Protein backbone atom coordinates (compact mmCIF):
# COMPACT_ATOMS: atom_id res chain seq x y z
CA UNK A 1 0.00 0.00 0.00
CA UNK A 2 1.06 3.56 -0.55
CA UNK A 3 1.92 4.11 3.11
CA UNK A 4 4.88 1.79 2.72
CA UNK A 5 6.30 3.47 -0.37
CA UNK A 6 8.08 6.27 1.42
CA UNK A 7 8.30 7.87 4.85
CA UNK A 8 5.53 10.13 3.66
CA UNK A 9 3.12 12.36 5.54
CA UNK A 10 -0.18 12.62 3.70
CA UNK A 11 -2.81 15.25 4.35
CA UNK A 12 -6.33 15.71 3.01
CA UNK A 13 -8.14 19.02 3.48
CA UNK A 14 -11.93 19.16 3.17
CA UNK A 15 -13.63 22.48 2.65
CA UNK A 16 -16.27 24.23 0.63
CA UNK A 17 -15.59 26.23 -2.52
CA UNK A 18 -14.48 29.72 -1.42
CA UNK A 19 -13.02 28.64 1.93
CA UNK A 20 -9.54 28.28 0.50
CA UNK A 21 -8.84 24.55 0.92
CA UNK A 22 -6.41 24.65 -2.00
CA UNK A 23 -4.61 27.66 -0.51
CA UNK A 24 -4.37 25.79 2.81
CA UNK A 25 -2.67 22.87 1.03
CA UNK A 26 -0.35 25.31 -0.72
CA UNK A 27 0.54 26.96 2.60
CA UNK A 28 1.32 23.60 4.25
CA UNK A 29 3.48 22.53 1.29
CA UNK A 30 5.34 25.84 1.16
CA UNK A 31 5.97 25.83 4.91
CA UNK A 32 7.26 22.25 4.78
CA UNK A 33 9.49 23.26 1.85
CA UNK A 34 10.92 26.15 3.89
CA UNK A 35 11.46 23.71 6.76
CA UNK A 36 13.86 21.92 4.41
CA UNK A 37 11.55 19.06 3.42
CA UNK A 38 10.21 17.91 0.08
CA UNK A 39 6.53 18.65 -0.37
CA UNK A 40 3.68 18.77 -2.83
CA UNK A 41 0.16 20.25 -2.89
CA UNK A 42 -2.68 19.83 -5.33
CA UNK A 43 -6.45 20.27 -5.54
CA UNK A 44 -9.01 17.55 -6.11
CA UNK A 45 -9.59 19.00 -9.57
CA UNK A 46 -13.25 19.83 -9.22
CA UNK A 47 -15.26 22.44 -11.04
CA UNK A 48 -14.92 25.54 -8.89
CA UNK A 49 -18.28 26.45 -7.38
CA UNK A 50 -18.78 28.44 -4.21
CA UNK A 51 -20.09 26.28 -1.40
CA UNK A 52 -19.53 22.93 -3.12
CA UNK A 53 -17.43 20.38 -1.20
CA UNK A 54 -13.80 20.52 -2.31
CA UNK A 55 -10.71 18.60 -1.35
CA UNK A 56 -7.04 19.43 -1.49
CA UNK A 57 -4.07 17.20 -0.89
CA UNK A 58 -0.57 17.50 0.50
CA UNK A 59 2.43 15.24 0.78
CA UNK A 60 5.50 15.93 2.92
CA UNK A 61 8.65 13.80 2.94
CA UNK A 62 12.35 13.91 3.62
CA UNK A 63 12.84 12.31 0.20
CA UNK A 64 11.86 13.48 -3.28
CA UNK A 65 8.16 12.88 -3.95
CA UNK A 66 7.36 11.40 -7.35
CA UNK A 67 3.77 10.25 -6.69
CA UNK A 68 1.12 12.05 -8.72
CA UNK A 69 -1.96 10.09 -7.62
CA UNK A 70 -4.50 11.46 -5.15
CA UNK A 71 -4.19 10.75 -1.42
CA UNK A 72 -6.34 7.80 -0.31
CA UNK A 73 -4.74 6.94 3.04
CA UNK A 74 -4.11 10.22 4.86
CA UNK A 75 -2.24 10.60 8.12
CA UNK A 76 -4.10 13.84 8.76
CA UNK A 77 -7.52 15.08 7.72
CA UNK A 78 -8.30 18.77 8.14
CA UNK A 79 -11.95 19.86 7.98
CA UNK A 80 -12.60 23.54 7.36
CA UNK A 81 -16.40 23.24 7.66
CA UNK A 82 -17.78 20.84 10.27
CA UNK A 83 -20.98 20.27 8.25
CA UNK A 84 -18.73 18.20 5.96
CA UNK A 85 -17.84 15.83 8.78
CA UNK A 86 -20.54 13.23 7.93
CA UNK A 87 -19.35 13.17 4.32
CA UNK A 88 -15.72 12.39 5.11
CA UNK A 89 -14.58 8.80 4.76
CA UNK A 90 -12.65 8.19 7.97
CA UNK A 91 -12.17 4.43 7.57
CA UNK A 92 -8.61 4.73 6.25
CA UNK A 93 -7.83 7.28 8.94
CA UNK A 94 -8.83 4.97 11.80
CA UNK A 95 -6.82 2.07 10.39
CA UNK A 96 -3.72 4.24 10.53
CA UNK A 97 -4.53 5.85 13.90
CA UNK A 98 -4.59 9.16 12.08
CA UNK A 99 -5.51 12.62 13.24
CA UNK A 100 -8.67 14.54 12.43
CA UNK A 101 -8.62 18.33 12.93
CA UNK A 102 -12.03 20.00 12.76
CA UNK A 103 -13.06 23.64 12.74
CA UNK A 104 -15.91 23.81 15.23
CA UNK A 105 -16.99 25.60 18.39
CA UNK A 106 -19.04 22.58 19.41
CA UNK A 107 -18.16 19.50 21.39
CA UNK A 108 -17.24 16.52 19.23
CA UNK A 109 -18.14 13.12 20.56
CA UNK A 110 -14.84 11.35 19.94
CA UNK A 111 -16.38 7.95 20.77
CA UNK A 112 -17.78 8.07 17.22
CA UNK A 113 -14.23 8.13 15.86
CA UNK A 114 -12.62 5.00 17.27
CA UNK A 115 -8.88 4.87 16.74
CA UNK A 116 -8.71 8.45 15.51
CA UNK A 117 -7.09 11.32 17.35
CA UNK A 118 -9.82 13.97 17.11
CA UNK A 119 -8.84 17.59 17.68
CA UNK A 120 -11.01 20.65 17.30
CA UNK A 121 -10.45 24.37 17.12
CA UNK A 122 -12.86 27.28 16.83
CA UNK A 123 -11.18 28.82 13.81
CA UNK A 124 -14.31 30.56 12.51
CA UNK A 125 -14.61 32.95 15.44
CA UNK A 126 -11.01 34.12 15.02
CA UNK A 127 -11.46 34.44 11.23
CA UNK A 128 -14.70 36.40 11.67
CA UNK A 129 -13.01 38.74 14.12
CA UNK A 130 -9.89 39.41 12.05
CA UNK A 131 -11.09 39.03 8.42
CA UNK A 132 -14.79 39.77 9.05
CA UNK A 133 -15.33 36.66 6.94
CA UNK A 134 -15.49 32.94 7.68
CA UNK A 135 -12.30 32.10 5.78
CA UNK A 136 -10.48 29.61 7.97
CA UNK A 137 -7.81 28.17 5.72
CA UNK A 138 -4.75 29.80 7.31
CA UNK A 139 -6.28 29.34 10.77
CA UNK A 140 -6.64 25.60 10.24
CA UNK A 141 -3.09 25.34 8.90
CA UNK A 142 -1.92 27.06 12.09
CA UNK A 143 -3.89 24.50 14.12
CA UNK A 144 -2.30 21.70 12.08
CA UNK A 145 1.13 23.15 12.82
CA UNK A 146 0.47 23.57 16.55
CA UNK A 147 -1.16 20.16 17.05
CA UNK A 148 1.22 18.04 14.92
CA UNK A 149 4.53 19.90 14.69
CA UNK A 150 4.80 18.84 11.02
CA UNK A 151 5.46 22.43 9.87
CA UNK A 152 6.94 25.40 11.70
CA UNK A 153 5.40 28.77 12.52
CA UNK A 154 8.43 30.56 11.08
CA UNK A 155 8.05 28.84 7.70
CA UNK A 156 4.31 29.51 7.54
CA UNK A 157 4.97 33.22 8.02
CA UNK A 158 7.74 33.12 5.42
CA UNK A 159 5.32 31.56 2.88
CA UNK A 160 2.50 34.10 3.33
CA UNK A 161 3.81 36.78 0.91
CA UNK A 162 4.06 34.14 -1.82
CA UNK A 163 0.38 33.35 -1.41
CA UNK A 164 -1.20 36.72 -0.69
CA UNK A 165 -0.28 39.92 -2.51
CA UNK A 166 -1.79 42.74 -0.45
CA UNK A 167 0.21 43.81 2.59
CA UNK A 168 -2.85 44.17 4.85
CA UNK A 169 -4.06 40.69 3.90
CA UNK A 170 -0.63 39.22 4.66
CA UNK A 171 -0.62 40.96 8.06
CA UNK A 172 -4.14 39.76 8.91
CA UNK A 173 -3.24 36.21 7.95
CA UNK A 174 -0.15 36.38 10.14
CA UNK A 175 -2.31 37.57 13.05
CA UNK A 176 -4.65 34.63 12.49
CA UNK A 177 -1.72 32.21 12.33
CA UNK A 178 -0.23 33.52 15.57
CA UNK A 179 -3.53 33.65 17.47
CA UNK A 180 -4.66 30.15 16.50
CA UNK A 181 -1.17 28.71 16.97
CA UNK A 182 -0.92 29.98 20.53
CA UNK A 183 -4.54 29.00 21.33
CA UNK A 184 -3.90 25.47 20.13
CA UNK A 185 -0.54 25.19 21.90
CA UNK A 186 -2.14 26.26 25.18
CA UNK A 187 -5.07 23.90 24.95
CA UNK A 188 -3.25 21.03 23.27
CA UNK A 189 -4.61 18.03 25.07
CA UNK A 190 -2.17 15.71 26.77
CA UNK A 191 -3.78 12.73 25.08
Amino acid sequence: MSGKLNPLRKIVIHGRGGQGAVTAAELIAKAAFYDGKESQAFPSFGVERRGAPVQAFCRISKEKITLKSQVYEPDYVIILDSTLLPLVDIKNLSEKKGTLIVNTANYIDSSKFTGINVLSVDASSVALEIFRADIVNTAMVAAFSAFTGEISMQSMIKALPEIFERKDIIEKNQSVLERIYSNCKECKPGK
Partner: protein
Amino acid sequence: MRKLIETSDAVAQAAMLCRPLVIPMYPITPQTHIVEKLASLISDGNLDAEMIHTESEHSAMSAAIGASAAGVRVFTATASQGLALMHEVLFIASGMRFPIVMAVANRSLSAPINIWNDQQDSIAERDSGWIQFYVETAQEAMDTTIMAYKIAENKDVLLPVMICIDGFTLSHVFEPVDIPEQKAIDRFLPKYEPGDKLDVKNPKSFGPIAFPDTFAGFRKMQDEAMGRSIDIIKNVNSEFKKAFSRSYGDGLVENYMIEDAEYAIVAMGSACGTARAVIDEMRKKGKKYGMIRIKCMRPFPREEIISAAKPLKGIAVLDRNIGLGAGGALFTEIKAILPEKNVNDIILGLGGKDITIEDIKKSFEIAEKENSSTQWLL
Protein backbone atom coordinates in the same frame (compact mmCIF):
# COMPACT_ATOMS: atom_id res chain seq x y z
CA MET B 1 16.61 29.57 -7.07
CA ARG B 2 14.56 26.64 -5.73
CA LYS B 3 10.94 27.51 -4.95
CA LEU B 4 7.71 25.64 -4.40
CA ILE B 5 5.43 26.76 -7.23
CA GLU B 6 2.54 25.53 -9.35
CA THR B 7 3.47 23.80 -12.61
CA SER B 8 1.45 26.40 -14.58
CA ASP B 9 3.52 29.11 -12.89
CA ALA B 10 6.73 27.23 -13.79
CA VAL B 11 5.66 27.09 -17.44
CA ALA B 12 4.79 30.81 -17.49
CA GLN B 13 8.11 31.71 -15.88
CA ALA B 14 9.95 29.48 -18.35
CA ALA B 15 8.21 31.25 -21.23
CA MET B 16 9.14 34.62 -19.70
CA LEU B 17 12.81 33.61 -19.43
CA CYS B 18 12.78 32.82 -23.17
CA ARG B 19 11.72 36.42 -23.92
CA PRO B 20 8.82 35.90 -26.34
CA LEU B 21 7.63 39.15 -27.94
CA VAL B 22 4.09 38.06 -28.76
CA ILE B 23 1.69 35.91 -26.69
CA PRO B 24 -1.68 35.42 -28.37
CA MET B 25 -4.04 33.77 -25.92
CA TYR B 26 -7.52 32.49 -25.27
CA PRO B 27 -8.36 31.02 -21.85
CA ILE B 28 -9.59 27.46 -21.33
CA THR B 29 -9.59 25.13 -18.33
CA PRO B 30 -7.14 23.74 -17.22
CA GLN B 31 -4.65 25.88 -19.13
CA THR B 32 -5.84 29.28 -17.90
CA HIS B 33 -3.38 29.58 -14.97
CA ILE B 34 -0.51 29.70 -17.49
CA VAL B 35 -1.81 32.72 -19.43
CA GLU B 36 -3.10 34.40 -16.25
CA LYS B 37 0.42 34.23 -14.85
CA LEU B 38 1.89 35.54 -18.10
CA ALA B 39 -0.61 38.42 -18.07
CA SER B 40 0.52 39.41 -14.57
CA LEU B 41 4.21 39.05 -15.50
CA ILE B 42 3.55 41.52 -18.33
CA SER B 43 1.48 43.93 -16.24
CA ASP B 44 4.06 43.87 -13.42
CA GLY B 45 6.75 44.85 -15.94
CA ASN B 46 8.69 41.58 -15.70
CA LEU B 47 8.04 40.58 -19.29
CA ASP B 48 8.12 42.91 -22.27
CA ALA B 49 5.71 41.11 -24.59
CA GLU B 50 2.53 41.91 -26.48
CA MET B 51 -0.37 39.83 -25.23
CA ILE B 52 -3.09 39.53 -27.85
CA HIS B 53 -6.52 38.65 -26.46
CA THR B 54 -8.14 36.83 -29.34
CA GLU B 55 -11.76 35.78 -29.77
CA SER B 56 -10.98 32.07 -30.17
CA GLU B 57 -8.16 29.55 -30.14
CA HIS B 58 -8.32 29.42 -33.94
CA SER B 59 -7.50 33.12 -33.91
CA ALA B 60 -4.87 32.70 -31.19
CA MET B 61 -2.93 30.23 -33.32
CA SER B 62 -3.48 32.38 -36.42
CA ALA B 63 -2.02 35.38 -34.55
CA ALA B 64 0.90 33.21 -33.40
CA ILE B 65 1.54 32.28 -37.04
CA GLY B 66 1.39 35.94 -38.10
CA ALA B 67 3.78 37.01 -35.36
CA SER B 68 6.17 34.17 -36.12
CA ALA B 69 6.07 35.13 -39.83
CA ALA B 70 7.08 38.64 -38.76
CA GLY B 71 10.17 37.05 -37.24
CA VAL B 72 9.61 37.11 -33.49
CA ARG B 73 9.55 34.49 -30.75
CA VAL B 74 5.98 33.47 -29.86
CA PHE B 75 4.39 31.57 -26.99
CA THR B 76 0.84 30.40 -26.43
CA ALA B 77 -1.05 27.76 -24.47
CA THR B 78 -4.32 25.88 -24.78
CA ALA B 79 -6.15 22.65 -23.97
CA SER B 80 -8.86 20.27 -25.10
CA GLN B 81 -11.60 21.89 -27.23
CA GLY B 82 -9.29 24.88 -27.69
CA LEU B 83 -6.60 22.70 -29.24
CA ALA B 84 -9.26 20.99 -31.33
CA LEU B 85 -10.42 24.39 -32.56
CA MET B 86 -6.80 25.16 -33.55
CA HIS B 87 -6.57 21.91 -35.53
CA GLU B 88 -6.77 23.51 -38.97
CA VAL B 89 -4.15 26.15 -38.19
CA LEU B 90 -1.75 23.74 -36.45
CA PHE B 91 -0.95 22.28 -39.86
CA ILE B 92 -0.37 25.76 -41.24
CA ALA B 93 2.11 26.59 -38.43
CA SER B 94 4.10 23.43 -39.09
CA GLY B 95 3.75 23.53 -42.89
CA MET B 96 5.08 27.09 -42.94
CA ARG B 97 7.87 25.94 -40.60
CA PHE B 98 7.27 28.46 -37.82
CA PRO B 99 9.09 27.63 -34.55
CA ILE B 100 6.11 28.42 -32.30
CA VAL B 101 6.14 26.95 -28.78
CA MET B 102 2.83 26.05 -27.14
CA ALA B 103 1.95 24.48 -23.81
CA VAL B 104 -1.04 22.13 -23.78
CA ALA B 105 -2.63 21.38 -20.40
CA ASN B 106 -3.99 18.01 -21.46
CA ARG B 107 -7.73 17.50 -21.06
CA SER B 108 -10.33 15.15 -22.50
CA LEU B 109 -12.43 16.00 -25.55
CA SER B 110 -16.25 16.22 -25.45
CA ALA B 111 -18.73 14.48 -25.55
CA PRO B 112 -19.66 13.80 -22.81
CA ILE B 113 -18.35 17.12 -21.59
CA ASN B 114 -15.55 16.70 -19.08
CA ILE B 115 -12.93 19.21 -17.97
CA TRP B 116 -10.44 16.76 -16.52
CA ASN B 117 -7.19 15.20 -17.62
CA ASP B 118 -6.44 12.73 -20.31
CA GLN B 119 -4.18 13.06 -23.34
CA GLN B 120 -6.80 12.70 -26.08
CA ASP B 121 -6.52 16.34 -27.15
CA SER B 122 -2.83 16.37 -28.08
CA ILE B 123 -2.84 12.73 -29.22
CA ALA B 124 -5.48 13.74 -31.78
CA GLU B 125 -2.89 16.22 -33.13
CA ARG B 126 0.05 13.86 -33.32
CA ASP B 127 0.15 14.00 -37.11
CA SER B 128 -0.03 17.80 -37.28
CA GLY B 129 3.70 18.25 -37.83
CA TRP B 130 4.39 19.56 -34.32
CA ILE B 131 7.13 18.10 -32.16
CA GLN B 132 5.34 16.73 -29.06
CA PHE B 133 6.85 16.40 -25.60
CA TYR B 134 4.98 14.87 -22.64
CA VAL B 135 6.38 15.89 -19.25
CA GLU B 136 6.27 14.33 -15.80
CA THR B 137 7.09 17.09 -13.30
CA ALA B 138 6.86 20.85 -12.83
CA GLN B 139 10.63 21.05 -13.25
CA GLU B 140 10.50 19.14 -16.51
CA ALA B 141 7.64 21.34 -17.76
CA MET B 142 9.79 24.39 -17.09
CA ASP B 143 12.99 22.96 -18.57
CA THR B 144 11.24 21.52 -21.63
CA THR B 145 9.63 24.87 -22.42
CA ILE B 146 13.11 26.41 -22.51
CA MET B 147 14.62 23.56 -24.55
CA ALA B 148 11.64 23.68 -26.92
CA TYR B 149 12.69 27.06 -28.38
CA LYS B 150 16.25 25.89 -28.96
CA ILE B 151 14.98 22.79 -30.75
CA ALA B 152 12.24 24.55 -32.74
CA GLU B 153 14.48 27.40 -33.92
CA ASN B 154 17.35 25.17 -35.01
CA LYS B 155 17.78 25.79 -38.75
CA ASP B 156 17.78 22.04 -39.42
CA VAL B 157 14.42 21.70 -37.65
CA LEU B 158 12.18 24.80 -37.91
CA LEU B 159 9.13 23.03 -36.54
CA PRO B 160 6.65 24.12 -33.87
CA VAL B 161 6.76 22.38 -30.48
CA MET B 162 3.93 21.33 -28.16
CA ILE B 163 4.71 20.74 -24.47
CA CYS B 164 2.00 18.46 -23.14
CA ILE B 165 1.29 18.78 -19.42
CA ASP B 166 -1.38 16.64 -17.77
CA GLY B 167 -4.17 19.09 -16.94
CA PHE B 168 -4.81 19.50 -13.19
CA THR B 169 -2.88 16.28 -12.44
CA LEU B 170 0.32 18.16 -13.24
CA SER B 171 -0.69 21.71 -14.25
CA HIS B 172 -2.21 22.44 -10.82
CA VAL B 173 0.41 20.67 -8.69
CA PHE B 174 2.71 22.73 -6.46
CA GLU B 175 6.21 21.23 -6.37
CA PRO B 176 9.76 22.39 -5.69
CA VAL B 177 11.21 23.86 -8.88
CA ASP B 178 14.72 25.11 -9.55
CA ILE B 179 14.18 28.36 -11.46
CA PRO B 180 17.14 29.26 -13.68
CA GLU B 181 18.67 32.73 -13.76
CA GLN B 182 17.84 34.97 -16.74
CA LYS B 183 21.56 35.32 -17.56
CA ALA B 184 21.98 31.55 -17.80
CA ILE B 185 18.94 31.28 -20.07
CA ASP B 186 20.25 34.10 -22.30
CA ARG B 187 23.49 32.16 -22.70
CA PHE B 188 21.65 28.90 -23.42
CA LEU B 189 19.04 30.43 -25.74
CA PRO B 190 20.40 33.31 -27.81
CA LYS B 191 18.15 35.95 -29.38
CA TYR B 192 15.94 34.49 -32.12
CA GLU B 193 17.30 35.21 -35.59
CA PRO B 194 14.66 34.26 -38.17
CA GLY B 195 15.75 33.18 -41.63
CA ASP B 196 12.89 34.58 -43.68
CA LYS B 197 10.40 37.05 -42.30
CA LEU B 198 7.63 39.40 -43.38
CA ASP B 199 9.35 42.69 -44.16
CA VAL B 200 7.86 45.58 -46.14
CA LYS B 201 11.33 46.63 -47.31
CA ASN B 202 12.14 43.16 -48.60
CA PRO B 203 8.81 41.66 -49.67
CA LYS B 204 8.52 37.88 -49.86
CA SER B 205 5.58 35.57 -50.40
CA PHE B 206 4.65 33.13 -47.60
CA GLY B 207 2.40 30.13 -47.89
CA PRO B 208 1.61 30.09 -51.60
CA ILE B 209 -0.32 27.26 -53.24
CA ALA B 210 1.59 24.05 -53.94
CA PHE B 211 0.37 22.12 -56.95
CA PRO B 212 0.39 18.32 -57.15
CA ASP B 213 3.90 18.34 -58.59
CA THR B 214 5.41 20.04 -55.51
CA PHE B 215 3.07 19.42 -52.55
CA ALA B 216 4.48 16.03 -51.56
CA GLY B 217 7.97 17.50 -51.69
CA PHE B 218 7.02 20.02 -49.01
CA ARG B 219 5.57 17.26 -46.82
CA LYS B 220 8.73 15.19 -47.32
CA MET B 221 10.87 18.14 -46.19
CA GLN B 222 8.76 18.41 -43.04
CA ASP B 223 9.13 14.71 -42.37
CA GLU B 224 12.89 14.92 -42.91
CA ALA B 225 13.07 17.84 -40.47
CA MET B 226 11.25 15.64 -37.92
CA GLY B 227 13.89 12.96 -38.56
CA ARG B 228 16.77 15.43 -38.11
CA SER B 229 15.21 16.75 -34.91
CA ILE B 230 15.95 13.40 -33.20
CA ASP B 231 19.68 14.22 -32.94
CA ILE B 232 19.01 17.89 -32.24
CA ILE B 233 16.71 17.05 -29.33
CA LYS B 234 19.44 14.80 -27.92
CA ASN B 235 22.05 17.56 -28.35
CA VAL B 236 19.87 20.22 -26.73
CA ASN B 237 19.16 17.85 -23.82
CA SER B 238 22.94 17.37 -23.34
CA GLU B 239 23.64 21.09 -23.65
CA PHE B 240 20.93 21.76 -21.07
CA LYS B 241 22.57 19.25 -18.75
CA LYS B 242 25.92 21.01 -19.15
CA ALA B 243 24.37 24.39 -18.38
CA PHE B 244 21.89 23.45 -15.63
CA SER B 245 23.00 20.00 -14.33
CA ARG B 246 19.64 18.44 -15.21
CA SER B 247 18.44 16.37 -18.14
CA TYR B 248 15.73 13.90 -19.06
CA GLY B 249 17.06 10.60 -20.40
CA ASP B 250 18.39 11.22 -23.88
CA GLY B 251 15.80 13.95 -24.40
CA LEU B 252 13.44 11.57 -26.20
CA VAL B 253 13.08 8.56 -23.90
CA GLU B 254 13.83 8.30 -20.21
CA ASN B 255 14.32 4.79 -18.87
CA TYR B 256 13.89 3.85 -15.21
CA MET B 257 15.41 0.64 -13.80
CA ILE B 258 15.30 -0.83 -17.31
CA GLU B 259 18.80 -2.42 -17.58
CA ASP B 260 17.88 -5.67 -15.82
CA ALA B 261 14.09 -5.36 -16.03
CA GLU B 262 11.92 -8.27 -17.14
CA TYR B 263 8.64 -6.38 -17.25
CA ALA B 264 8.13 -2.73 -18.03
CA ILE B 265 5.57 -0.05 -18.33
CA VAL B 266 5.69 2.27 -21.31
CA ALA B 267 3.96 5.54 -20.48
CA MET B 268 3.86 9.32 -20.95
CA GLY B 269 3.25 12.19 -18.57
CA SER B 270 2.66 12.60 -14.86
CA ALA B 271 1.58 9.00 -14.14
CA CYS B 272 5.23 8.04 -14.71
CA GLY B 273 6.00 9.60 -11.31
CA THR B 274 3.54 7.26 -9.61
CA ALA B 275 5.04 4.38 -11.62
CA ARG B 276 8.53 5.21 -10.27
CA ALA B 277 7.29 4.85 -6.68
CA VAL B 278 5.62 1.52 -7.53
CA ILE B 279 8.78 0.23 -9.24
CA ASP B 280 10.87 1.20 -6.18
CA GLU B 281 8.47 -0.66 -3.90
CA MET B 282 8.18 -3.78 -6.09
CA ARG B 283 11.95 -3.95 -6.65
CA LYS B 284 12.32 -4.34 -2.88
CA LYS B 285 9.99 -7.35 -3.20
CA GLY B 286 12.25 -8.86 -5.86
CA LYS B 287 10.18 -7.93 -8.92
CA LYS B 288 12.33 -6.91 -11.89
CA TYR B 289 10.14 -4.04 -12.98
CA GLY B 290 11.15 -1.00 -15.00
CA MET B 291 9.78 1.83 -17.12
CA ILE B 292 10.34 3.30 -20.56
CA ARG B 293 9.03 6.83 -20.35
CA ILE B 294 8.23 8.33 -23.72
CA LYS B 295 9.04 12.01 -23.36
CA CYS B 296 8.95 12.67 -27.09
CA MET B 297 5.93 11.30 -29.00
CA ARG B 298 6.76 13.19 -32.21
CA PRO B 299 9.23 12.49 -33.68
CA PHE B 300 8.63 8.92 -32.50
CA PRO B 301 11.93 7.61 -31.09
CA ARG B 302 11.79 4.12 -32.66
CA GLU B 303 15.41 3.08 -32.26
CA GLU B 304 15.66 4.29 -28.68
CA ILE B 305 12.55 2.33 -27.66
CA ILE B 306 13.57 -0.85 -29.53
CA SER B 307 16.96 -0.84 -27.83
CA ALA B 308 15.51 -0.22 -24.34
CA ALA B 309 12.88 -2.94 -24.80
CA LYS B 310 15.29 -5.66 -25.97
CA PRO B 311 15.56 -7.68 -22.74
CA LEU B 312 11.89 -7.33 -21.74
CA LYS B 313 9.58 -10.34 -21.39
CA GLY B 314 6.41 -8.32 -21.15
CA ILE B 315 5.26 -4.73 -21.63
CA ALA B 316 2.22 -2.79 -20.47
CA VAL B 317 1.61 0.40 -22.43
CA LEU B 318 -0.37 2.95 -20.45
CA ASP B 319 -2.63 4.88 -22.79
CA ARG B 320 -4.36 7.95 -21.36
CA ASN B 321 -6.20 8.16 -24.68
CA ILE B 322 -8.17 5.81 -26.91
CA GLY B 323 -7.86 5.54 -30.67
CA LEU B 324 -11.44 4.37 -30.99
CA GLY B 325 -11.55 1.23 -33.06
CA ALA B 326 -7.78 0.71 -33.01
CA GLY B 327 -6.55 0.72 -29.38
CA GLY B 328 -4.49 3.27 -27.50
CA ALA B 329 -2.32 5.52 -29.66
CA LEU B 330 0.92 4.76 -27.85
CA PHE B 331 0.16 1.02 -27.90
CA THR B 332 -0.37 0.87 -31.67
CA GLU B 333 2.95 2.63 -32.25
CA ILE B 334 4.87 0.50 -29.74
CA LYS B 335 3.39 -2.73 -31.12
CA ALA B 336 4.36 -1.66 -34.65
CA ILE B 337 8.04 -1.41 -33.70
CA LEU B 338 8.04 -4.43 -31.34
CA PRO B 339 5.94 -6.96 -33.30
CA GLU B 340 7.54 -9.99 -31.60
CA LYS B 341 7.05 -8.74 -28.05
CA ASN B 342 4.26 -9.32 -25.54
CA VAL B 343 2.80 -5.80 -25.59
CA ASN B 344 -0.41 -5.15 -23.63
CA ASP B 345 -2.56 -2.09 -24.03
CA ILE B 346 -3.92 -0.54 -20.83
CA ILE B 347 -6.53 2.17 -21.39
CA LEU B 348 -6.78 4.20 -18.18
CA GLY B 349 -6.93 7.64 -16.63
CA LEU B 350 -9.53 8.96 -19.08
CA GLY B 351 -11.53 12.08 -18.23
CA GLY B 352 -9.70 12.71 -14.98
CA LYS B 353 -9.85 9.19 -13.54
CA ASP B 354 -6.94 9.06 -11.13
CA ILE B 355 -4.10 6.70 -12.09
CA THR B 356 -3.43 5.05 -8.75
CA ILE B 357 -0.63 2.95 -7.32
CA GLU B 358 -2.99 -0.04 -7.63
CA ASP B 359 -3.59 0.72 -11.35
CA ILE B 360 0.16 0.64 -11.99
CA LYS B 361 0.57 -2.61 -10.05
CA LYS B 362 -2.33 -4.12 -12.00
CA SER B 363 -0.66 -3.05 -15.26
CA PHE B 364 2.57 -4.81 -14.30
CA GLU B 365 0.57 -7.94 -13.41
CA ILE B 366 -1.05 -7.81 -16.85
CA ALA B 367 2.41 -7.52 -18.47
CA GLU B 368 3.46 -10.65 -16.53
CA LYS B 369 0.36 -12.79 -16.99
CA GLU B 370 -1.30 -11.77 -20.22
CA ASN B 371 -0.16 -11.87 -23.80
CA SER B 372 -0.80 -8.87 -26.04
CA SER B 373 -4.15 -8.08 -24.41
CA THR B 374 -6.18 -4.88 -24.31
CA GLN B 375 -7.60 -3.91 -20.94
CA TRP B 376 -9.62 -0.98 -19.71
CA LEU B 377 -9.06 0.08 -16.11
CA LEU B 378 -12.35 1.83 -15.42
